[in-house]
């Protein structure tokens, strides 16, 4: 059974595009990244499977339950962290967490204490007094306190300082070790790189590609930078497998997807001063999807 199973899910807002024919499978126990620029449809997808908004067409299941008819059952087993956290201003942190816990028929006080401790969150403050980052921490605790089987996190790290981000990722890794499936959206690729087993790339409401992180990086792309003796404008132009090519003075830089052998042979034609062959950042791999 897949933790999340989405089939040709489409959501249109009036005439404007939301998401179009989104297909996704997230396996149980997996950490799955959902990557795309702002406005690509990440939050729309998440809100649709959580039944906040109704799909125009398509199917979606979470933990084997139908997202649109069995939403209440689903929500007993999942934790959700929205990208923008808004809570009741009149409540204190601990009141909100207890309110949140009271929806589950479970004793959560120990888990709350553990999480607040790990995130250095003081529970006696009023929510309206909290900074954005601290509100986000409250959001993290309320998403995790009932020990859900699946975590759906929408841009979870925005607003957290780097130290807290690391702590948060440690918490997530520990949860994942216990078997919790994690689905999170982001436009920051380095954090996805750190955490995820697989990623889906979404742009303009459509899924462009789903791949494992290892595949994406190891097998496909090399980042190659060459410094030439004489400026040549058309070096490696239209060479098969070359993408994101850019030229600055005597330097040419590109991503290469293919047999390295062919590049080496081609290099004989030029006089070369320097050459760098590196593992590209995911950002660079994705840039051409975005363009």
């Amino acid at each position, binding site marked *: 059974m897949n933790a999340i199973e989405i089939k040709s899910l489409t959501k249109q807002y009036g005439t404007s595009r939301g998401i179009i024919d989104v297909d996704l499978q997230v396996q149980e126990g997996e950490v799955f990244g959902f990557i795309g620029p702002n406005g690509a449809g990440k939050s729309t997808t998440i809100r649709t499977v959580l039944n906040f908004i*109704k799909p125009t067409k398509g199917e979606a299941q979470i933990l084997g339950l139908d997202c649109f008819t069995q939403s209440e059952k689903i929500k*007993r087993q999942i934790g959700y962290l929205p990208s923008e956290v808004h*809570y009741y201003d009149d409540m204190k942190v601990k009141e909100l967490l207890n*309110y949140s816990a009271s929806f589950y028929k479970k004793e959560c006080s120990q888990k709350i204490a553990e999480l607040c401790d790990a995130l250095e969150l003081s529970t006696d403050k009023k929510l309206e007094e909290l900074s954005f980052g601290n509100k986000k921490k409250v959001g993290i605790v309320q998403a995790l306190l009932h020990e859900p089987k699946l975590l759906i996190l929408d841009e979870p790290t925005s607003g957290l300082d780097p130290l807290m981000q690391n702590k948060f990722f440690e918490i997530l890794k520990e949860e994942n070790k216990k078997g919790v499936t994690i689905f999170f959206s982001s436009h920051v690729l380095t954090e996805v790189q750190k955490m995820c087993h697989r990623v889906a790339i979404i742009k303009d409401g459509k899924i462009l590609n789903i791949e494992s992180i290892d595949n994406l990086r190891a097998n496909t792309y090399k980042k190659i930078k060459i410094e030439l003796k004489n400026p040549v404008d058309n070096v490696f132009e239209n060479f098969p497998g070359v993408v994101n090519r850019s030229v600055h003075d005597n330097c040419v830089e590109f991503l290469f997807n293919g047999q390295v052998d062919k590049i080496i042979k081609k290099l004989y034609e030029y006089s070369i001063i320097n050459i760098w062959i590196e593992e590209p950042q995911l950002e660079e791999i994705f840039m051409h999807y975005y363009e």
Partner: protein
Amino acid sequence: MVIYKREIFRNRKSTMLWTSILLSYNVCMLLLYPSMVGPLKDSMNVMIQSFPKEMIAAFGLDKVSMTEMLGFYNTYCYLLVTILGGIFAVIQGSSILSKEEDEKTIEFLLSKPVSRNNIITSKIFAVLTNLVILNTIISVISFVTIELVNKESYNRRVLLLLFIAPIFMQITFAAIGLIISIFIVKARINFPTGVGIVLGCYFISIIATISSKADFLKYFTPFKYVDGADIITKQAIEPIYLIIMAIVTLTCVIATYIIYNKKDIVA
């Protein structure tokens, strides 16, 4: 139950504030009653007769006497209980659901294991509870005050009707507020809309009272459904009005359930 408790707690200050304002107004007015029916009684009646007849009709003084207990309660207390009570009800009704969307807390609530129906039901019961609390406290303490200041006999059954009728009207206004808030989520718009509707209904009821040509308007304003002077003279709330209020309330509530379940909720 979780949401119900939360709503009662969250609205406690507002309910208590409205209750205490109305209550202190009622008690102050009722304490003036003895001076009204004392030596001044005849000159009061003469003075009232000198008012324009439209004004007398608007206050229902052509049907009841201000120098009798029930007539006095109708003019000085009942009017404000219906107007302010109506405003309280429409504010409660229009804010209870939309507040979650307006303050963007609805995503939190919907991510918990509760159905939308459960949310609506809990919130409707919270509003009903608040209305019952408001009316019960005002009625009980007004009754005690009336017993203290009134020396003559009066019909207690009619007084009970004057205590109960505003609840029906308030429930109707709360239901209207609820359905409005499905379409107008922003508090800064739905709040004045609700208050405007209540005050508008009050003015319609005055027009319906003073002009015989506009008599048909009485079916369009809850204030006429529970008109105090009519209740005192007929010693009953007219069944047709009870039926209208029931139909309006049920229609609004059922429509709320249907639309809210289909609605895209985006914080």
